[in-house]
């Protein structure tokens, strides 16, 4: 459309009527798409700037304040050059002169007009409906009236058992009133829930003290002696006391203004797919609108409309609004309810139902032709977003049928937290239903804009900024993306009782102040004990070793006995000996040498370990150096089975022998072990290389695992067998062995430099976030090479065999008695 009506040099004028959620979202989208295109004037009949109407429920319940729910402050309007008229109701639109007029006579000419007048509470046409004390539940004024009544009146009656009615009832109950919900239907929320779920809901609301009168038809509201409402009377003549009546029986679109301007309305102001009314200069969005016969009453679809409308106002002219699928949640604290799509089922559909009335959980999924078409969940709604995604995407769920009822977590693995659940979602998965924000948007914003708090994510992405029911998911994403840094207060747990400093602070101080000995470090950081404890000394010893690989002299007395004696101490005080077998490979000569050693030192038991090598148990401490001498002679080095160090590299036979092998997994394993052996770590560190995705070497539960594929190597990190099983995260895929080695060295060094002592890679990855690790090891080749360089540098001093040294007499006192007393 041409804008020639605007005088040359001046901007075209956009006027908006209705200062509410949908309209203001349109303006925000417009500013994003084309700021400064219009002179904007906004009329609102409420005396407030735009606020989050959804949050009126928490305000009523006393969980939030009116100030907290303001979305656009008056300053915001000023900063964006928008003229705002509050407390002024537009009563006339003159389409011929293109001018609007408010009830106080204020006039504003427009080139384009946006009607976003929302809707109002429907008031039952019954006697007494206009008595003082009868309110709707729509705006701040209503909520203020309810709060006032709550302090003066005892009985509240809420008419209507829908979402709004229940939220009102909950809020009034929280404010100490006796609350009765009167509902015409046989079950609550019949538009959102099927009967079993509705019964569960009713039961938990009753447990909160709310009373229900179902299938009750209100006939009249009776006045009290003070002339305000005093009782509710039903069809059958019965009455109940009521000092406050909340009408929550539905909403009606505000179309009087549009109708008076001659715009076509049928149960809403009719718009097309570009959000235009029958007058193409006049746009409309929000609850006042009827699009393809549907008037939406939830913000998610309205915000989609806002996007489309802004696109056209910005003259990009490509977007189309084609309608929305909606899902609902109830915002009553302690009650989790989710429903979406066609949850009732019916012809041609089948239902999967899981019900545990005792635990208060109920799930119903409606399926039609292998697609999810509806969901109704009560109790555990964590999977709601996932179901909604499957529903909207029309995903073929035939593969999921058996497990789908148990949620997404069931598809993964045990030991996974909430964080892993969101981690598993694709980037396109919608996290915030209200604002249509996908996982990818949130993760990118967190990463690019360096966001650390929920508030920041809300401000930048709008995710979780409306109804807030996705807050948990957003927090999980934050935790997953920035790891432990997320939230305002980064955890500052002291390293141990000897200090107030955290692991990270200690490490940073060692580096920053060039502290090179343990006494210096303790003095500088004002350690509270003279020489630490069994917790901090091994940690400091490691931190110093990692920081100054060339200079620091290892302190044997700060090492756990296993690392001091280079064997695992056994319950009887003897030790075990595990020689390194590179990549699990061995040969007759090596086996013979081990057999000889076992016989010579009368080893009581031998075993093949879970790490693909041999363990000789029950060796006397004083025999260790001599045994090691023999093993060294035969070419063995220590397997470090006892250390916070590189343990084993598990391999499978790969393409050397296996009919499925795609690469030389054994050879690569050996090369990885040759590169990494001897390295001290924050905790034990295990590698594996599997020759194909059958994954015989169990690479996906290793600290660093390689799965060979035809086209290269998948690199996996942060896996853990043991106490809490954690499946690896995929770090990246590379094409050559050289790249595997470089990524492995870089990842190992990053772990060595950043993890807390005694923190394995699995909790470390969860703490710092996969994104952080990828940024350093995958995305940035320079950082990767620098890290790998530092690792190789450290290895130059680390790769000396401790057994050989001790066989030659090092630390001899460790293995001999001080004295022997012979009793006569």
């Amino acid at each position: 459309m041409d804008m020639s009506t605007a005088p040359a040099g001046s901007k075209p004028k956009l006027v908006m009527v209705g200062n509410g959620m949908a309209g203001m979202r349109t303006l925000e989208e417009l500013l994003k798409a084309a700021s400064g295109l219009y002179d904007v004037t906004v009329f609102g009949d409420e005396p407030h700037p735009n606020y989050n109407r959804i949050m009126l429920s928490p305000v009523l319940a006393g969980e939030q304040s009116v100030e907290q729910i303001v979305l656009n402050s008056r300053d915001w309007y000023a900063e964006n050059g928008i003229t705002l008229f509050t407390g002024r109701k537009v009563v006339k639109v003159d389409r011929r002169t293109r001018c609007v007029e408010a009830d106080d006579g204020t006039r504003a000419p427009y080139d384009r007009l946006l009607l976003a007048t929302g809707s109002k509470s429907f008031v039952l046409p019954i006697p007494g409906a206009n008595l003082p004390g009868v309110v709707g539940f729509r705006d701040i004024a209503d909520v203020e009236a309810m709060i006032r009544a709550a302090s003066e009146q005892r009985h509240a009656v809420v008419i209507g058992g829908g979402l709004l009615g229940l939220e009102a009832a909950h809020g009034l109950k929280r404010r100490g009133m006796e609350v009765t919900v009167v509902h015409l239907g046989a079950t609550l929320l019949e538009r959102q829930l099927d009967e079993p779920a509705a019964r569960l809901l009713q039961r938990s609301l009753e447990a909160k003290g709310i009373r229900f009168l179902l299938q009750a038809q209100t006939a009249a509201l009776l006045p009290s002696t003070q002339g305000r409402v005093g009782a509710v009377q039903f069809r059958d003549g019965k009455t109940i006391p009521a000092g406050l009546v909340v009408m929550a029986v539905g909403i009606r679109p505000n179309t009087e203004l549009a109708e008076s301007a001659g715009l076509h309305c049928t149960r809403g102001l009719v718009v097309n797919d570009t959000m235009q009314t029958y007058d193409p200069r006049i746009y409309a969005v929000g609850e006042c609108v009827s699009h393809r016969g549907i008037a939406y009453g939830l913000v998610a679809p309205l915000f989609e409309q806002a996007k489309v409308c802004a696109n056209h106002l910005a003259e990009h002219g490509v977007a189309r609004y084609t309608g929305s699928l909606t899902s609902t949640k109830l915002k009553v604290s302690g009650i989790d309810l989710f429903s979406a799509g066609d949850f009732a089922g019916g012809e041609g559909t089948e239902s999967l139902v899981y019900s545990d009335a005792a635990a208060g959980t109920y799930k119903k999924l409606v399926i039609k032709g292998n697609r999810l078409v509806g969901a109704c969940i009560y109790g555990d709604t964590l999977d709601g977003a996932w179901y909604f995604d499957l529903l909207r995407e029309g995903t073929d769920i035939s593969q999921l049928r058996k497990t789908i009822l148990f949620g997404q977590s069931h598809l993964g693995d045990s030991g996974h937290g909430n964080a892993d659940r969101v981690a598993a979602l694709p980037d396109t998965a919608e996290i915030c239903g209200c604002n249509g924000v996908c996982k990818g948007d949130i993760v990118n914003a967190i990463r690019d804009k360096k966001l650390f708090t929920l508030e920041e994510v809300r401000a930048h992405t709008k995710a979780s900024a409306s109804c807030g029911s996705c807050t948990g998911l957003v927090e999980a994403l934050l935790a997953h993306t920035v790891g432990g840094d997320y939230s305002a207060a980064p955890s500052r747990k002291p390293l141990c009782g000897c200090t107030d400093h955290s692991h990270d602070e200690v490490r940073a101080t060692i580096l920053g102040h060039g502290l090179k000995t343990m006494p210096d470090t303790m003095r500088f950081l004002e350690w509270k004990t003279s020489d630490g404890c069994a917790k901090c000394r091994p940690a400091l010893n490691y931190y110093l070793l990692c920081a100054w690989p060339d200079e620091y002299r290892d302190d044997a007395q700060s090492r756990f006995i296993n690392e001091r004696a280079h064997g695992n101490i056994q319950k009887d005080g003897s030790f075990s000996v595990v020689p390194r077998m590179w990549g699990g490979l061995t040969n007759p000569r090596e086996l013979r040498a081990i057999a000889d050693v076992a016989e010579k030192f009368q080893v009581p038991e031998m075993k093949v370990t879970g790490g693909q090598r041999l363990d000789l148990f029950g060796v006397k401490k004083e025999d260790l150096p001599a045994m090691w001498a023999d093993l060294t002679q035969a070419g063995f080095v220590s397997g470090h089975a006892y250390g916070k160090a590189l343990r084993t590299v598990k391999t499978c036979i790969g393409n050397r022998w296996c009919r499925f092998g795609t690469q030389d997994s054994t050879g690569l394993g050996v090369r990885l072990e040759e590169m990494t052996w001897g390295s001290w770590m924050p905790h034990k560190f295990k590698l594996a290389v599997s020759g194909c995705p059958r994954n015989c070497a169990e690479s996906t539960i290793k600290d660093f695992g390689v799965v060979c594929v035809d086209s290269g190597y998948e690199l996996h990190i942060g896996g853990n067998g043991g106490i809490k099983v954690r499946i690896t995260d995929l770090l990246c895929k590379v094409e050559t062995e050289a790249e595997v080695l470089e990524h492995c060295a870089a990842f190992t060094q990053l772990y060595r430099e950043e993890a807390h002592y005694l923190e394995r890679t699995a909790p470390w990855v969860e703490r710092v976030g996969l994104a952080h690790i990828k940024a350093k090891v995958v995305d940035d080749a320079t950082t990767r090479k620098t890290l790998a360089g530092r690792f190789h540098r450290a290895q130059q001093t680390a790769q000396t065999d401790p057994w050989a040294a001790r066989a030659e007499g090092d630390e001899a006192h460790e293995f001999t008695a001080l004295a022997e007393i012979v009793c006569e």
Partner: protein
Amino acid sequence: MQTATMTDAETWISIGRIEDIPRQGARVVTISTGDIAVFRTADDEVFALADKCPHKGGPLSQGIVHGKRVTCPMHDWKINLETGLAAAPDEGCAARYPVRVVDGMVSLSLMVE
């Protein structure tokens, strides 16, 4: 290693020089009646305890010595070197032996304190 013959329980038996025991460490004195752990703290105090943790008999000589305590390598009980008592909340006591250092020479008495 030094071999001493015990003739009279009251006598002090010399077991070696203080430098033979690492600072913040321990050495074992073997004896048929049960090993004894001889500890040397960071400030060169010397203590002797039965090399048997009051918990499950772990070898205290293999633990990490800090302040006047040793942390047992088996399950992390902390034993006071002066008293032999386990630190709260654990309860138990390791037998103590008198030790003295004269001109750098450490001697031990087998009279349990």
